[in-house]
């Protein structure tokens, strides 16, 4: 399988390419991307920071597989490639609960956006300090319609 991007197999076999000095960061990143490519999902359900989502999580109990749904607000998305993660926060019986999922995990069956919220930042950590009604985000209606 050829590397994605500018790098191609023919270039790789070229002895000129092999002469790049060890630890050439550009080349190394391309190789890492190539290794990760097998682990990436081709299609990820689209969701944004501030969205209230249902994360359908596959759980293996013995030989039986069932789906568990975790509902909450996406407050952060971090990392890149196969290391990309997103954090979902919800309030369970008055206690804040956060779960972090790998975006490309095969264990995640689907992510369903229930409601979109208006946000002005990429990390909604300020929600951790809020209680009760203050946790709510203003709904972003136009985006809901387009989805």
């Amino acid at each position, binding site marked *: *399988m*050829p*590397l994605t991007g500018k790098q191609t*197999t023919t270039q*790789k*076999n070229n*002895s000129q390419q*092999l*002469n790049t000095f*060890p*630890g*050439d960061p550009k080349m*190394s990143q391309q*190789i*890492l991307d*190539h*290794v*990760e490519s*097998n*682990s990436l999902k081709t299609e990820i359900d689209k969701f944004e920071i501030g969205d209230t989502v249902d994360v359908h999580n*596959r759980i*293996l109990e013995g030989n039986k597989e069932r789906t568990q749904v975790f509902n909450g607000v996406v407050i952060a998305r971090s990392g890149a*490639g*196969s*290391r990309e993660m997103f954090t979902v926060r919800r309030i369970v019986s008055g206690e804040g609960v956060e779960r972090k999922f*790998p975006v*490309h*995990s*095969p*264990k995640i069956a689907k992510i369903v956006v229930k409601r979109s919220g208006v946000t002005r930042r990429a990390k909604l950590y300020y929600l951790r300090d809020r209680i009760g009604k203050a946790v709510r985000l203003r709904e972003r209606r136009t985006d809901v319609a387009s989805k």
Partner: protein
Amino acid sequence: MAAEDQKDETPESQSESDVPAAIAASEPVEMERKGLLGRKIGMTQIFDDDGTVVPVTVIEAGPCTVLLSRSAGRDGYDAIQVGYRDKPRRLASRSVRGQVVKLESKRAKKRSHAGIEMVAKADCEPQRFVREFRGETKAQVGQKITVAVFEGCDAVDVIGVSKGRGTAGVMKRHGFSGQRATHGVKKVHRHQGGTGMCQSPGRLFKGKKMAGRFGNERSTMRNLRLVDIDNDQNLLVVRGAVPGPNGGYVVVRQTNKVKRSGGVGTPTSKKKGAK
């Protein structure tokens, strides 16, 4: 001596060096204990077949050229000397260049006049990283070894030079617990405790663990699971960490640990090497 045989091989290896792709596609070299040289690319994570995250290190290994074949008869032990990564000729000293090609010299002339055959050379570019692998092989000088040698291999040992930490304290260097934060401890929170006894023996024992230079030394990680082999890109993907910085040279060899059978760390992913 097999010097004549090896000499016959030389023109063949020359023609092969023009088409590196053809060598890479050749069948794996038989080695008593499989080994290869490479460099650490970096760490990432991939998903196992059952969706478990596996932390992996990517190593670009080979193709390595066999530079020299050692035999018990001549050298006292069986081994092959292999090189990894071409080095520009302008940076290579004459002795390094002489490692890979036959150089003209007074001594060589004298010896050829005396009818002594020169040792076969690989006829390749000077190599940056050269190491020997012990054990009998059928590898010929000039032959290329690729990651394909590890086909069917479950786990490997990876040898590298660890990152240098400079002068480090006992907590970092030896994993000491340090001292308490309170209860009268004065400015020695990261110090060791006592280092010895009283008047008897009245001295420190040799080898007492203390602060000092840490890292930048040869380090071996044993029994790392071989998660994936990428023949096209010359990549080995091993589970876990590998000593040294990204881009650092490493020696990868088949592990001599007893094969795993169940329990913690059992290989769970299918080998994707033959794709």
